[in-house]
Every structure is written in C-alpha cells, then in structure tokens.
C-alpha cells in the first residue's frame, strides 16, 4: 500500500530530477548568455494580461473585443447635454381621513441633467372636495463627491402635523385598510424653497417657506372594511401664514463612527409671519461594528420649541422612530428627549437557524431598548403647562423589543418589523409596528444611501 502510494511521488521526483538533470549540463558546459530582460511595462502588461485572460474565459462573449467594422461616423449624435425633455405621466392615489380618496396624476418633465426636473401634480380629494397639487422643481448636481440640491415647491398639499417624521406609503395604507392612521394633518397653501450641500463628511441646508397653514377636519370616517377608525378627530392646527427660515447642518464626528446634526427653524414678525417661534432639534447616532457579527447603533435626539404651543411646531412621541409601545404621535409637547440603542445582527435569521433560503428571504435579527419623554404643554390638552426644555423624571417611558430588518436594496429603504414590551410599571402593553425606515432613523439619511 505504502509502496503504491509512494510511486507517484517517486515518479514526480524522477521527473523533477530529470528536468534538473537536463538543466545541469547546460550549466556545466559553461556560461550561456541570459535572455535580455523584458522592459518593465511589458512584463507588467503580461502579468495583467494573464489575469485578463482568465476574465475573458469566465465572461466569454461579454468580454469579446469590439468588432469595429461597420461603425458609423460623424453625424449620428446623441448629445448628453442636449437630450430631449422626457415626459412621463403617472397616476396617483392617496387616502387619509382628512381628504378621503384622492385621485390624480402627475406629469414629470426631465430635461438635461443641468436643467433639472419639474414635476407637475394635480389630484382631486373626493372627501374634502378640493383640488390639491402643485409644481415641484428639483436640480441636483454632483461634483467630486459633493451633492448640491436645489428644490422648490408651490401649490396646495395636505401635510402631516409631525414635522419630524412621516410615512408617506404606510400611513395611507393604514388609513385605508385598517383605519389605524393616527397622524394628524393640516393644509399648506404656498411655496417653499431650499438649497442643500452634502458630502460624505458634512452637509448644510438653508430653506425658506411661505405657507398658509389651516386646520383640517375628518371627511372619511371609514376604511375598506367599514369599521370605525381607531382615531377619528384630527388635531386642529392653528390658522395663519407661516413665513419661516430653516437652517440645518450635519457632520460625521472625526475618529469615531458617529454623526451629529442640528436643525433650527425660526419664524416671527421680522419675516412678517403670523407665527413666532424658534424650534431646535439635535440628533446624534453611531454605527459601531462588533467584529463581523453585529452592529451596535446608539442614537439620541433632543428638541424643543420656544415661544409657542402651536400643534404644528410641537414634538411628538410614539411609534415611528421613537417608542414602539406608544401609539403613533400619541404624546406631544414642546420638548422631546429620546435615546435608544439597537443591536443588529449581520447574518440573517434563517441562515443562523441553518435553513437554506434564497437571498430574497434574508432578514437580519435585531434587539433594541429605548427611553423617551415629552414635556411642556401638550397639543392634545388645554395649554397651560410651563414650557420646559427637559422632561421631568416621571415623564420618561422605556421599552425593550426585538425586530427583523429587511433590506430590499431599493431606494435605501429598510423594512422593520418590531415587537416591543414596556419596561417599568405602566399600563402600556406589548405592541407591534411595521416601519419603512433606515438604521439611523433619528438622523436624516445620507444621500449616498
């Protein structure tokens, strides 16, 4: 047995020996001229060519050289900068309890990249019997990794009362299918414009708006299953013309994987506004990689308003990126403080369980804990409480939960299925939430994501 095993080795040794033997006389016969060394670049190209050859074999006809025979010359131009304006018609449907079913459509005019894009929209709200829509212009230029975005909008729209969070796809579905849309709405008539500069390291934004804000009443007190809505009344906004200046900035913290951002909104008599307020919001979040197994994502936010108790400037707590065990926007105040930490696994659940699955079903497991509170006068109650920038100790609510994250890889979205349990002595119960969001959801998502 050992002999038979040894034969190939011996044969190999023999061959090597033979090769060596063939070389030996040559050395022994005296010096022979060494071949001229190839020029360095040629050798490098040969080295890269060897790698390319293997690539050619792998990709086959995809990597075949171009056959230049029959190529046209001269006048068949498709100039990038002179591209025709592309038109696209898109139907639209929206639903909320303020407007009911809203049928409409949009006309998108996409010109050359330098010119930008114009979206024209018009829709009729069957419930409120009003026409909504307007025009939005957007131009984004990218140079050396820096995005510069100009946006302008003018028209009439239904906006969410919560300025810090909205769920444009999920809220209409909740309202229509299960009547569980808890958000409040107000009407905007006017215009707004913004300029933003964003790079991988920092961003800055300036925006102005001049909008008439008016309260809305519920006109659709039904859902598809003809059940009563979970929440029917709409928190009434204070009526008036809002002329506002917004300044925002964000940056990555040097040396550590954290980002910070701050946004400041101001309105007052100087801007000939019917409202007078200063609103500030700070947020910080990090992405700490734990080996190759998980990411730890701590986040915190703090915000407050000065000089106003208007519902449209309040901070809201509940669901969304805040506390899962508190229903959406159920609590409000003139100040908000929130901190949460999430541990997100890198592998997907089924793979961890040893179940073979297609990539389509890759869900990342996560666990989280959060605490938060609002303070100051609540928009849901008669004003009277003192404006306080930091919540009192007994106002804090805490929870812990688990989640599944799904990354479809489209538009930077992340689908989150969360189940949370309240911590401490409380009447709140376990609660489930579905959310379309991104991992650092207390901060604005970077453009590159």
């Amino acid at each position: 047995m050992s002999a038979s095993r040894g034969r190939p080795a011996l044969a190999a040794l023999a061959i090597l020996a033979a090769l060596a033997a063939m070389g030996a006389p040559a050395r022994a016969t005296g010096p022979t001229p060494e071949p001229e060394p190839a020029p360095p670049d040629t050798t490098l190209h040969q080295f890269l060519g060897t790698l390319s050859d293997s690539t050619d074999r792998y990709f086959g006809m995809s990597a075949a050289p171009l056959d230049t025979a029959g190529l046209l010359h001269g006048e068949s131009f498709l100039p990038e900068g002179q591209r025709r304006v592309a038109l696209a018609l898109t139907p639209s449907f929206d639903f909320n309890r303020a407007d009911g079913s809203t049928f409409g459509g949009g006309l998108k005019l996409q010109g050359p990249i330098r010119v930008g894009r114009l979206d024209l929209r018009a829709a009729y709200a069957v419930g409120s019997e009003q026409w909504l829509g307007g025009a939005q212009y957007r131009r984004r230029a990218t140079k050396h990794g820096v995005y510069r975005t100009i946006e302008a909008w003018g028209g009439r729209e239904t906006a969410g009362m919560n300025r810090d969070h909205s769920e444009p796809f999920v809220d209409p579905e909740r309202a229509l299918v299960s009547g569980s849309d808890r958000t409040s709405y107000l009407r905007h008539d006017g215009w707004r414009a913004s300029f933003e500069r964003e790079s991988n390291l920092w961003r800055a934004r300036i925006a102005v708006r001049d909008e008439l804000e008016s309260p809305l009443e519920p006109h659709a007190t039904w859902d598809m299953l003809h059940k009563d809505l979970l929440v029917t009344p709409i928190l009434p906004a204070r009526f008036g013309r809002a002329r506002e200046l917004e300044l925002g900035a964000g940056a990555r913290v040097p040396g550590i994987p954290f980002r910070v951002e701050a946004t400041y909104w101001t309105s007052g008599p100087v801007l000939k506004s019917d409202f007078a307020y200063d609103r500030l919001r700070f947020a910080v979040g990090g992405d700490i990689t734990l080996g190759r197994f998980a990411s730890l994502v701590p986040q915190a936010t703090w915000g407050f308003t000065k000089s106003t108790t208007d519902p449209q400037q309040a901070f809201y707590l509940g669901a969304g990126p805040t506390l899962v065990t508190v229903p959406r926007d159920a609590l409000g105040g003139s100040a908000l403080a929130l901190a949460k930490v999430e541990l997100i696994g890198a592998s997907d659940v089924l793979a961890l369980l040893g179940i073979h699955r297609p990539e389509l079903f890759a869900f990342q497991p996560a666990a989280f804990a959060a605490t938060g509170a609002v303070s100051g006068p609540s928009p849901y109650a008669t004003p009277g409480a003192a404006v306080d920038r930091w919540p009192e100790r007994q106002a804090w609510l805490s929870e812990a939960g688990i989640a599944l994250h799904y990354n479809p890889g489209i538009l930077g979205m992340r689908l989150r299925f969360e189940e949370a349990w309240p911590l401490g002595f409380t009447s709140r119960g376990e609660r489930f939430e579905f959310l379309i969001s991104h991992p650092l959801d207390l901060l604005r998502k970077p453009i590159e994501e």
Partner: protein
Amino acid sequence: MPLLAIVLAVALAPAGPTLAVEDTMHTAVGEVLVRAPRVTLGEILDRVARGEARRDSLLTDQTFLATARVVAHANEPGKPPELMSETVFRVYKKRPDKVRAVVVRRYQAHPPKDKGVRAKAEVRFGPDMSEEIVNFAFRPEARRDYRYHIVGRDIVGGHVVYRIAFEPRSLLTPGYPSGLVWVDTNDFVIVRQEVSFGRSPVPLILERIDRLVIERAQFGGHWLLKRALVRATATVPLPRLGRSFDLALQLDDYALNTGLADTLFAPRRGGDASDEAPAR
C-alpha cells in the same frame, strides 16, 4: 606518490568538462539585519489617493469608444449565451464639465415594437474623468468607510504590485461591496479590481452578484478604464435575460489631451432627429 595520484586522477576522471576548484568552494555568510523601513498600509493608501488624483489631473480631455453589452443566459445549463444588446458610443469628455456621447452602433436581438424613448437602452456618461468606479473605496473621503489590508505583493518586471483587499466597516447594509485591488506602485494607481458582494445588494431582483471585474490598461502613459464586467443571477428568471446574465462595458481607442474644441459640445439643431443609429 603525488605524481601517481595526479596520473590516477586524470585517468579516472570522467570525460567532459572539468570543474574548477573555485566552483566547488563553500562559504558561509553571517546574518544581516536589514533596517529598511517598510511602507505602511496607511502610507500606501495615502499614495494611492494621491496617485489617483494625479492621474485625474493629467487629463484635460479624452475621447474613447465605449461598448455596452447585455448577454442573456450567461451561465445557464442547456442555454447558450445570447447577445441581447450591444451599443457602441464614441464619447468625448473635456474639463470641467463637458461631455458628448455619440451612438455609432446599436444592436438589439429583439427590438421592441415601441420605437419611443423606452425602446432605447440608454447609457449615460458623466463629464468626470476620475473613474470613481475604479477608486471608490480608495478616495480620501471613503477611508473611514472601509477596512483595508495587504493581501500580497508581486514583483513584476520593475514594478511592485500590491494586492490590497477592502471591505466595508459597517455591517448595517449587507449589500455593500468588498473587493481586491492591484496597485502598481510606480504610479500608485489601481490597475485592476475584483469586487464581491457577501450578500445581494438588491435581493428583490438579484439572487447574487457572481463576479464583478474592473480592469484598467495603459494608454499613452495613462492608466484608464478598460472594461467593467458583471455577472449576476436574478432572483427569478427575467424576461428574455433568464436567470444568469452579464453586463459589460468596454472602453477602447482612447485619445487623450488632444485639445477637443468647445464647438464639439455645442448644441446642434436637429440633433434629436438623427441621434440614433439604425439597429443592426
């Protein structure tokens, strides 16, 4: 006695060349501690960033032929690969922001009945010549987003070629790319890159990216993008493409810094009407 020994030695010596005494001499050399500093990974990354920036700065304009291909059934048992479309462009770029792309051939295996805008498979070229597709992970602003390590060094001719692997620091987005680049240390430019994805970046559509190769070649002393090849497997069979398909972009026939006239990029009346070459 010595004479006898010499005679015997001559008589018994094999025919053929005779080894000189000095050829069989043995000696020993003591250990030598080499104190030459080794280039650190950080220095290499700095030099790559500078090398790429320098490479970009040397280009004022460029003209090239770009071939975009889509190949269906690229790796499916029982189905031969099929060239679905091939579009060849003549592309002109000039600093700071001028670009023009000319279609010089358009082939589609199954031309759609709709002759409108949607029927055209469009490839857009930007004016930038820094080739971000090659160096995206090695730009200064990307340094904190990736981890790097030296995989190996190859001495090729007069060049030292470093192989440097990179992977994203964050695990939050599993579809981020990792990869391996070959860096020629004569110019400190990336000459080849193989990109891999641990997980599909678009699981709704793609089961996986099987392979992604990006190659540069030297044209007129400048390292320029030569081709980018991707093979992907779809989650479900795509119409006409099947499950496995290739996307390829090849760039040839470069002409650099020829002083392209601004008029080449000027608007052309009636250009829209003749902007597309007939299908082959």
